[in-house]
């Protein structure tokens, strides 16, 4: 293995990228655009849910009840609907997600100390969002009931409001959000996007770069040259690792400045882990490129191997601990989960070497295996 030959291959590769200005621009633009779109777009905040109300009672009490919903920052009141049919057709067209129905006789029954039934119809299309909305609605309703009961008992039995409240809800649950104190989607999915984007973009870039030589036939020059396969692959990868590492720095800067995510961990650890992860991702692209012959299949298979697993099986959307066994195994087999541990550990949790070294070791091992496989599988001979 000669360093000069590796350097030559790298220079050649770099020149090739440099001269294809569109490709070059894409190599740097794609990650940035993905980060912006995914970071802002994959918002898991459930806020400003559009809803309409149908008020059959139209009394002071029913308006008061409705105010509890329309004043909440979780809901966005879209006005009154005349009847269920009109409201449901709005829901069919995805204009609203939730309908609140207040029955006639609402005020009359409550003032007489009776129970009354209201109804909420929730759009179940987005499973997660509809569950959260359901919880919000129940919580607002429970709060309202508490107020009603307090007033009622205070009036009827002359109890002190504090005693009533102790009787009605003796235990209060105080939630403290760790690591992401403001429950910001940008902190969570936003910083997690560094993992997803840096898994997809380097892999795609590398896969296309290697297969291009195969498809255009310029690989025959390599076959016929004195370059060994190790030298070829190392030389080929270096520019892509450099580009990807630069991209990763840009994305990290975006997370810090654009998304306002705090960085609580060790920057040195983060940078070392980033190099490892970038080599991993380029390794995936390299491995794919050895298997396929055309750029079209290279692109598809790289996407297949990175995007969906990176999104679904990394813990980004759903924690690995909650997955069923096959999904859990898949998560442990892919590098995304380890990198996400490092990203969230460094940004949000403030973890150091002692907590994260295991994840880094696995990433290092992963890239070594991928590179080894690629070198081993790369044949300087055309299969007949």
């Amino acid at each position, binding site marked *: 293995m000669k360093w000069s030959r590796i350097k030559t291959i790298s220079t050649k590769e770099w020149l090739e990228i440099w001269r294809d200005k569109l490709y070059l621009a894409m190599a740097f*633009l794609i990650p940035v655009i993905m980060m912006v779109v995914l970071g802002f777009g994959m918002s*898991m905040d459930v806020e400003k849910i559009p809803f309409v109300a149908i008020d059959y009672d139209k009394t002071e009490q029913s308006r008061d009840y409705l105010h509890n919903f329309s004043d909440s920052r979780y809901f966005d009141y879209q006005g009154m609907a005349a009847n269920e049919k009109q409201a449901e057709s709005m*829901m069919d067209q*995805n204009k609203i997600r939730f309908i609140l129905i207040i029955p006639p006789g609402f005020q009359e029954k409550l003032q007489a100390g009776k129970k009354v039934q209201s109804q909420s119809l929730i759009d179940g299309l*987005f499973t997660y969002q509809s569950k959260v909305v359901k*919880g919000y609605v129940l919580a607002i309703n429970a709060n309202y009931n508490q107020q009603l009961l307090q007033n009622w008992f205070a009036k009827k039995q002359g109890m002190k409001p504090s005693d009533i409240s102790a009787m009605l809800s003796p*235990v*209060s649950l105080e939630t403290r959000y760790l690591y992401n104190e403001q429950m910001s989607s940008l902190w*969570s999915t936003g910083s997690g996007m560094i993992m997803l984007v840096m898994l997809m973009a380097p892999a795609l870039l590398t896969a296309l770069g290697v297969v291009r030589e195969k498809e255009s036939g310029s690989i025959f020059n390599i076959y016929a040259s004195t370059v060994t396969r190790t030298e070829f692959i190392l030389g080929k990868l270096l520019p892509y690792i450099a580009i990807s590492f630069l991209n990763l720095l840009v994305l990290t800067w975006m997370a810090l400045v654009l998304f306002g995510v705090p960085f609580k961990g060790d920057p040195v650890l983060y940078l070392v882990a980033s190099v490892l992860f970038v080599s991993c991702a380029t390794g995936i692209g390299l491995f794919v490129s050895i298997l396929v012959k055309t750029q079209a299949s290279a692109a598809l298979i790289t996407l297949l191997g990175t995007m969906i697993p990176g999104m679904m099986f990394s813990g980004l959307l759903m924690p690995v601990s909650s997955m*069923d066994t096959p999904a859990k195994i898949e998560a442990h087999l892919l590098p995304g989960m380890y990198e996400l541990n490092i990203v969230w550990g460094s940004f949000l949790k403030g973890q150091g070497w002692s907590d994260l070294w295991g994840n880094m070791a696995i990433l290092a091992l992963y890239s070594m295996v991928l590179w080894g496989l690629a070198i081993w599988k790369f044949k300087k001979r055309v299969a007949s």
Partner: protein
Amino acid sequence: MRLWWLRVFALTQKELLQFSRDMILVVAVAWFFIGEVYVAGSGVKMELINAPVVIMDHDRSEASRDWASQLKAPYYKVLGYVNSQQEAYDLLDKGEVIAIFDIPADFEKRLLLGQKTSIQLELDASNIIIGNLANSYSSLMNAEFNQKWMLKTMKIVDAETIQAPMVELRQKIYYNPEGKATWFMPISEMMTVITLLALFLPAAMIVREKERGTIEQLTVAPLTPFQILFPKILAVEIIILLGVAVSVLGVVGAVFQVPFRGSLILFFFVTMVYIYAVSGLGLFIASVSRNLGQALMVSFMVLMPMMLLSGAWTPKEAMPEFQQYLVVLSPLSYYIDMGYSIILKGATIQLIWWPLLQLFALGSILFWLGLIQFNRQLK
């Protein structure tokens, strides 16, 4: 005219043949429509399932055990009790648990005295989905405990007999009453796959001809540019519609038992128009890029925003305002709206003819632009 069609069909056949010879590509496409759709539906639920938690019980009384006993499957998995704050935080930091419930030492005493007390929930919110759900479920659970305790202290057996004003909220979830994630995810995944392929395949088909120079052969043949490009889109339509049929009938229908409320034919028709629109975009990208690398990178760059703006992952109202305006530009957003409406809401053509027409117009404009660009290059 017959000859005209014969030529179109001959070229379509050529495209299909060429596609079928790239075995890896065929396998990848098949896996997309079957495997990925299945995996998305079965593996990933944005749900609180077996979330690992520990309890820090400083009271160790009947009441505290009673409270903790409500933490159970399928939502929680209690890994046990811890004694010290440090131990608990270590577990949280390592990601081995997502929450700690901290019950104070005088929990039962205060309850029996009729005083207020509180339980601390320390929640790992690095994953916001789990943070939201865990908080919501725990609050509901706590409310249940409160109600039970209240009934006990008031010596009321049946909650129905209390004479007090109360609003009972009846909740009904539409379209997907049990909130099954297996309904939403596979359809969303299938639509993503359709978009991906409808964009990539025509782009790849055209640029490959340019790169290899076989385009010269086509241009000297008695074919108009339309006759050269249209068969590629036809071939893509056939490939993808076949995949969709397997996906919808096999995976979504047979495996996940998603009820198909609307008309199957209408769904396929809408899908066809959608593929046309997206391949129009692919064609346009192919006509402006010089080599496959470029074409694939550009389509990739177009694909990401298109998917995210579509509402396939998050509903539109959750996006920031500037993105809500851009949604109109994403063909996928029209398709998602129509597709879900047909499958889960049973929409008919009367309800969706307008977006369908818009989608068709969008596709035609792109196809036409690509054609002009392609024409210019040939001359």
